Every structure is written in structure tokens, then in C-alpha cells.
């Protein structure tokens, strides 16, 4: 074997090694979630999904409160984020060269990479802070919801824009030629045509915010009780993992792994759905 060939073999080996370095930690994470948390879910499924957490040192308990809190928080975030992101995205696609569209596109490209923890700080400052906030209630669930909505808006907008741009302009021209108004063209003709794409866009945005913990911790604080009021801290699955994982209590740590397994499956499920829809689209 010549030196050149040998070098080729070595480089090829290193390239495959890098793939292993990518896959092994993921497999390790999933494995640990199953080993350390899976049995807890299997041994008491009902309790795990519906019950509240126990004080440290007490056997049993579940993450029902965190699931409930996450549902509330994500629900409000979707309620704000989906229409805003979708309408902005449609504008970006249909009024491509307007100055507003250009500015919004530039900003959303930055926002996609923006530290999410800062988003939580900002909603806290404007809404919840006792000193500077409009509503001045202290750490609150709605501040976290708004932060999550703000995180997902640019992602949804850019994906909706991309789907709308796949519609051939002949369809628009034809519809306008028939005398439809812009509103009818957009909501009756274009939007139904790219339904799957819009749903995918929402799923991508949703997948991004399900697992967010930093903005929630800074704007909502930490709670281990049932969701009570929008102006109070609410529990959520990622924050529960954070608190339980850092705690020195064995029971809590086990539940942190179990919650991680649940969250991981949720995120992977949403990603799977999004991929399926994209494939159907093509």
C-alpha cells in the first residue's frame, strides 16, 4: 500500500469515528433514561402521570402537576405564537420586497439564534417584575408563556414563509383574475393548499419550546405545586427535571429520569410527525 492510500484509509476511519462520537452520547442518554427512569413509569404509570410530586424522602409521587402546568403554559404560548407567527410568515411570503418584510426577515434570522434565557428576562421585566413590570406580580406563568410564544414566533414565521413560497405564482394570478380579494386568495385558496406545511411549521416551533427551561425558570420561577393562577409560578416538565435532577434525593432523581424519558419521547414524537408531514408534502 502506498503512503497516499494509507492516508486515505486513516482519514476515512477518522470520519467514521466522528459519526460514532455523534451517536454514542445520544444512545447513552436514551439508555440512561430508560434504565434509570423507565421502570418507575412502568411500575406505577397512573401515579406517575396524574399525581403530584412528594416531599423529598417520601416514596412515590408523579409529575402530573408538571404535565398540567406545561399544558397550560404551552397552550397559551401556542395561542399567542401560532397566529402571530403564521400571519407574519404569510406577509413575508406575499409581500416579499416590502421594507417591513425585509426588516422582519432580518430580525427573525437573528432571533432564531437568540439566547432564550434573555427572552424570559425581557418578559419578566415588562410584565411580572415588581419594579418595572406592567402587571407587577412577581414571577408568573403568563410571563413564561409569553416568552415561549416569542421564541416560537420567528421560527413559525420563517417556516410558514418558506411553505407559501412553494406555491406557484400562477395560482395566485389565476385567483386574482377571477376577482377574488386578497383575503379570499390567502385564506381560502393559498392557506388550504399548504395546510400540511403550516402544520409542520407549527410543529417545528412547538418542538423548540416544549423542552425550554431557561426562559421559564427566569420568568416563572420554580414551583412544585399544581397550577393555580396565571400570576403565580407554575410547574413544568423541563423545570421539574432541572430541580429534581439537581436535588440530592434518590426518589426525585429517579423521577427526573422518568420525566426526561417522557419529554424525550414527546420531542421525538413531534419531530417524527413533522418529518412525516414534510414527506407527504413533497
Amino acid at each position, binding site marked *: 500500500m502506498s503512503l497516499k492510500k494509507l492516508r486515505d484509509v486513516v482519514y476515512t476511519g477518522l470520519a467514521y469515528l466522528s459519526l460514532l462520537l455523534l451517536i454514542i452520547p445520544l444512545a447513552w442518554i436514551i439508555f440512561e433514561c430508560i434504565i434509570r427512569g423507565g421502570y418507575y413509569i412502568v411500575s406505577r404509570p397512573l401515579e406517575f402521570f396524574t399525581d403530584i410530586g412528594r416531599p423529598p424522602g417520601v416514596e412515590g409521587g408523579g409529575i402530573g402537576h408538571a404535565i398540567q402546568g406545561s399544558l397550560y403554559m404551552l397552550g397559551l404560548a401556542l395561542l399567542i405564537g401560532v397566529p402571530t*407567527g403564521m400571519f407574519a410568515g404569510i406577509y413575508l411570503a406575499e409581500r416579499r420586497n416590502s421594507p417591513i418584510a425585509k426588516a422582519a426577515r432580518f430580525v427573525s434570522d437573528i432571533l432564531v439564534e437568540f439566547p432564550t434565557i434573555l427572552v424570559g428576562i425581557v418578559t419578566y421585566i415588562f410584565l411580572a417584575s415588581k419594579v418595572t413590570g406592567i402587571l407587577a406580580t412577581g414571577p408568573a406563568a403568563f410571563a413564561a408563556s409569553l416568552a415561549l410564544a416569542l421564541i416560537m414566533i420567528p421560527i413559525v414565521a420563517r417556516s410558514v414563509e418558506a411553505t407559501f413560497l412553494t406555491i406557484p405564482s400562477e395560482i395566485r394570478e389565476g385567483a386574482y383574475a377571477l376577482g377574488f380579494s386578497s383575503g379570499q386568495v390567502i385564506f381560502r385558496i393559498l392557506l388550504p393548499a399548504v395546510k400540511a406545511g403550516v402544520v409542520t411549521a407549527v410543529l417545528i416551533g412547538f418542538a423548540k419550546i416544549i423542552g425550554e427551561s431557561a426562559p421559564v425558570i427566569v420568568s416563572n420561577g420554580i414551583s412544585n405545586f399544581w397550577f393555580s393562577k396565571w400570576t403565580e409560578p407554575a410547574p413544568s416538565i423541563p423545570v421539574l427535571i432541572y430541580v429534581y435532577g439537581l436535588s440530592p434525593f434518590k426518589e426525585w432523581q429517579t423521577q427526573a429520569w422518568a420525566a426526561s424519558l417522557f419529554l424525550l419521547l414527546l420531542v421525538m414524537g413531534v419531530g417524527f410527525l413533522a418529518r412525516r408531514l414534510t414527506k407527504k408534502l413533497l
Partner: protein
Amino acid sequence: MTTVRKSIFIFLGGFALFLALILPLYFFGELYGASEFFSKFSFLDFILGREWSLSEQKYGALPAIYGTLTTAGLALLITMPVSIAAAVAMTELLPEWLSEKLGIIVDVIAAVPSVVVGLWGIASLGPFLSDTLYKFLVENLGFIPIFQTTTLTAYNKLTAALMLGYMITPFAVSVIKENLRLVPMEIKEAAYALGLTKWEVIRITLSYIKPGIFAALMLALGRAVAEAVAVSMVIGNTCSFSVSLLEPACTLTTLIINNFAEATGIEAAALIGLGLVLFVISILMVLVSRLIYGKLLGGYMR
């Protein structure tokens, strides 16, 4: 009729305008929140202050900036070879179907919530590394300052950097992959026609997309700087200027996440000040990488 046509775009444009205003809103919010702090402390003292201590009312951002830059920089050094090699393997070496499957795995890695990675770091990776790699480093290479430590713990800058490196690799891989796909076939064909081996050709394609790789790594670095929860779980959370990678540290994001929920008054404002520093660093990184990408749009990325 024309008014109807216009009005829907005014409606939609309102949302787009809101989107465009989010970033200025963030900046204004950060300034507003930190104003209480900067009215009492000078900005220069804040940036160059070497100590962060609540009891002494000392708010210096330098140790956090140092921690952020060292861990993120180290994470970048780890990501660089791995992401380039993985992207090359996926686009140039493996068959299409397999690299598609791997692409899905890369997407899954990117989607793993950071708090789950942090849990893995604190309960699995950290203890594993301190029993194996760190022990080896301290015993055999302990004479080098970066591997010196008085008490070996599982939670230090190196653990944080390794974990961060893993978290940001998927983004770098996908962007580099995209760049590799855009290299014109003619270039590779010409290189093969000259009788070059596979890896010589790959080296040529890599040098061709150098700006793209740089932009990808800048984006990855931005993500590393922005990461909060996972880092705070494994970095040890003790501010210091130690050069040793095996010593704990703090970063901009970890100081915020650990203290913001209970902070009030001047401390909260100081933490928001740290956020302002983070804001500027990450905007700079994104802008630089966008600038390079914009330049690319005139080049091979048409």
C-alpha cells in the same frame, strides 16, 4: 375592492411589523431592566470588575465573561473536527439512504432538550469522566497548568465544554453538510481527472467551502454562549479565573439562571446587566456569520 385588497395586507403587515420590532423590544427591555444598576455603578467597573459577590455588593462581570468565553471556545474546539468529519462522512462517503438516516439522528440530537442533556451531564457523563479521563489527566499530565486542580470534581469547565460541544455539533453538521452539497460537481470532477485520491479531492472541496464552515462554526459558538441550563448543571458554579480546565467556573448564563428567580433590587438589575453583555456577544456572532453567509450568496451559494 382595492381597499379590501389593501386591508388584509395591513392586517398581516401588523404582525410582520411586530416580528421586526421584537429585537429592538428585547434590547430596550434589557436596557430598561438594567438601568437601575447602571445608574449606581459605572459600566466600565461592571465589565472589568473581577469579583461577583452579593454580600460585598461587588458586581463584576469579568469572571462570568471569562467563563463563558473559555467554555464556549473549548466547546468550539471540540466541535470543529467532529462536525467537519461527520459532515464529510455523511455527504461524501456514505450511501444516500444511510446518510439520510444519520441526518434524522442528527436532528434528534439537536432536539434533545438541554435540561435532559444537563441531567445526563450531572449524573452520567460527569462522574464517568472524573473516574477515567480526569483522573488520568491529573495523574499523568498534572504538571501542565490547564490540568492542575486541588480537588478533583466531576463538575468543571471541561465537563461543561464537552457537553456543550456535543450539543452544538448537530447545527454545525447540518450547515456544513448543506455547504458541501452546493459545491459544483465540475470542481470535484476536475480534481478527480487530475488523478487525485478521494481525500485530496475532499480537501479541495473543504477549502472551497471554508467561509461556509466558518459561518457554521460561528453559529455553533453562538449557541454555546447562549446555552444556560445544561451548563449551569455541570460547571460547578464557582466563579474563578483559574486557567485549569478541571476547576469549576461560572458563566454569564449560569449566574443569571442560578440567581435570577430569587434576586431583587440591585442584584436583579445587575443580573440583567449580565444579560445585556450576553445580548451583545450573541448578536455580534450571528451578525458576523450572517455577513459571511451574505458574501457567500454572491459566490458559490447561488
